[in-house]
């Protein structure tokens, strides 16, 4: 961010940004509070953002709190990443009709709304980058993902208040957005006036920012001063010091490959409920199944692709039984895929250190602790 001068938005300027994105045809989806949780919803106003809301996250625990200030981004990720917007949990592949002995198959059409993702954390930006690798840059890409991704504008935000289960610093994925965004915001710490430093990360972002500056009325949009940029850097640096968890990634791939028979897998299995929560909240988990849904007469049918989880018994079902009947082997599959085999498959770790799998595990299982337990036996 150092080489970019940046722009400062006051609160009305942030509203103007939302207005401009909407005027340019993007539906703006940002964090809002619903049922005591920060979730994503379409927003039209900065007033819909979680003002003065913080969160407390730990293994199996998530609570919102009043911060006692006016910050709009003073919390970290809720249970949802942005995955479901680009890669829906349920997607039609095709539908068909039986007419006599004939069958007609009609391919599905992609529903690709133009979305501006507003307030994307660095961990989630990296998760989107990983999905680009997994779903788009493949011999046979997922065309629906590619279409939606191209229709997406991303407004990132520097994480200022990492949670108790965060470990993006260990994974090299945060807390400061470094790439993969159109615009990046940093909410500047308490001053007389609520201010955001915004920098562009793409030509499209630059263009939006230029128009925002041109159209701005009064002093809602300002040129950033040296002090603003220094303050923004300080936000990121301070956040990096406050990670709730850490994961030693040294030789992690080989460590897990070498410990496929480690007793720790049985230990974690004695606590794991195989509920699949971790895979559903994980912003990078991409496994899917297909369901054929037909009417009672069997004359029409539709094939839906649905999110699946390697924690189910059915996931590895092969004629006569499951390949992974034990929870131990399923947790090992998940953790080894995420942290080790993903590297062989896609060139990066599959974990971005967002901590959601820890927060939303009803048994408070902590992947960083499980890996540490396996590593402790090695030393």
């Amino acid at each position, binding site marked *: 961010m150092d080489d970019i001068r940046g722009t400062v938005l006051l609160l009305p300027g942030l509203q103007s940004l939302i207005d401009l994105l909407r005027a340019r045809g993007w539906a703006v989806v940002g964090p809002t509070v619903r049922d005591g949780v920060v979730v994503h919803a*379409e927003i039209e106003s900065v007033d819909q953002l979680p003002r003065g809301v913080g969160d407390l996250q730990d293994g199996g625990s998530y609570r919102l709190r009043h911060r006692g200030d006016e910050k709009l981004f003073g919390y970290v990720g809720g249970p949802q990443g942005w995955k479901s*917007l680009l890669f829906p949990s349920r997607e039609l*592949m095709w539908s068909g009709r039986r007419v006599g002995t004939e069958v007609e198959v009609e391919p599905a059409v*992609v529903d690709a709304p133009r979305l501006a993702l507003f307030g994307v954390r660095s961990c989630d930006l990296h998760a989107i980058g990983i999905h680009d690798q997994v779903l788009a840059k493949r011999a*046979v890409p997922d065309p629906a993902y590619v279409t939606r991704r191209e229709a997406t504008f991303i407004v990132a935000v520097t994480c200022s208040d990492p949670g108790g289960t965060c470990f993006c610093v260990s994974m090299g994925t945060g807390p400061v957005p470094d790439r993969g965004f159109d615009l990046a915001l940093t909410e500047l710490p308490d001053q007389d006036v609520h201010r955001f430093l915004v920098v562009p990360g793409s030509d499209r972002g630059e263009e939006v920012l230029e128009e925002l500056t041109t159209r701005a009325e009064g002093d809602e949009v300002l040129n950033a001063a040296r002090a603003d940029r220094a303050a923004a850097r300080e936000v990121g640096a301070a956040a990096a010091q406050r990670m709730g968890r850490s994961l030693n990634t040294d030789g992690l791939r080989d460590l897990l490959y070498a410990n496929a028979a480690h007793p720790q897998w049985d230990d974690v299995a004695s606590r794991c409920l195989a509920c699949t929560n971790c895979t559903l909240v994980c912003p990078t988990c991409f496994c899917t199944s297909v369901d054929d849904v037909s009417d009672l007469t069997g004359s029409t049918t539709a094939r839906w692709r649905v999110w699946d989880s390697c924690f189910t018994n059915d996931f590895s079902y092969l004629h006569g039984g499951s390949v992974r009947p034990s929870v131990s082997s399923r947790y090992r599959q998940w953790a080894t895929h995420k942290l080790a085999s993903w590297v062989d498959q896609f060139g990066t770790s599959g974990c971005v250190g967002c901590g959601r799998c820890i927060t939303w595990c009803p048994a408070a299982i902590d992947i960083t602790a499980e890996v540490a337990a396996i590593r402790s036996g090695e030393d």
Partner: protein
Amino acid sequence: MQRLAERQGVQPVVAAMVPRLFRLVHRRQDTADTFTIQLKPTDGRPLGFIPGQFTMLSAFGVGEVPISFSGAAHLGGLLQHTVRDVGAVTHALARASVGELLGLRGPYGTGWDVADGRDGDVVFVAGGIGLAPLRPAVLEVLSHRQRYGRVVVLYGTRSPPDLLFADELKRWEGQGVEVLVTVDHGTPSWTGRVGRVADLIARAGFDPGSTLALVCGPEIMTRFTAAALVERGVHPDRVRVYLERNMRCGVGLCGHCQYRELFVCVDGPVLPYARVADLLGVREL
């Protein structure tokens, strides 16, 4: 999310997940639970494949399963699949009658590359329905028989009534193939061998130093067979094994077929034993 209904316009999903329609033109019951079907493309476009590859075969309204080709790569535009009736989809396929339409995607996966065994001996080792994915490779060898040295087919199955392609096995013997058959459990009238197919490796006539071995069967059989071939002196790179995992897409996107870092549907199903020898020893991988 729907309020600001700015749609970028709808686009058709590219064909990867959408099946082509094939008509069932011939059906044969092989054993009590196994049958062979022949399929013809309704759009007239023949589907090329290499021995060892598979398709995702759909029974309309029921579901889709990976099934390997069991017919010759050149069958006059007809595709042949040999299927064991073990689950909902294969049961629906079993009930399908001639004239019905089935959905098909593919071909997917790696092949046996049996031509790599020319000028040397070729050993096929099959367990149960594992003979079906090997059959196209055997037929390829037989169509160029003189280019190969000794050709051996070792086949083990559960019991004599489960013997697949029994007449054909006899024919192959007449075409210069050493065929050794064994069953897990004999019947009173069975006068052949009883025991593991891996135990046939020691008695088959081939030169391990110049052998390409292709193995297809249940994972436990594959593991012991490949180890026995290496024990006899076949180089682990010259032993190819066929892996089997749950598959929902066939193109490496659904994640189901992962075998540690491998996507069996695109990296396999045929893989060099040297690549997976360590993995075969890990339980529930």
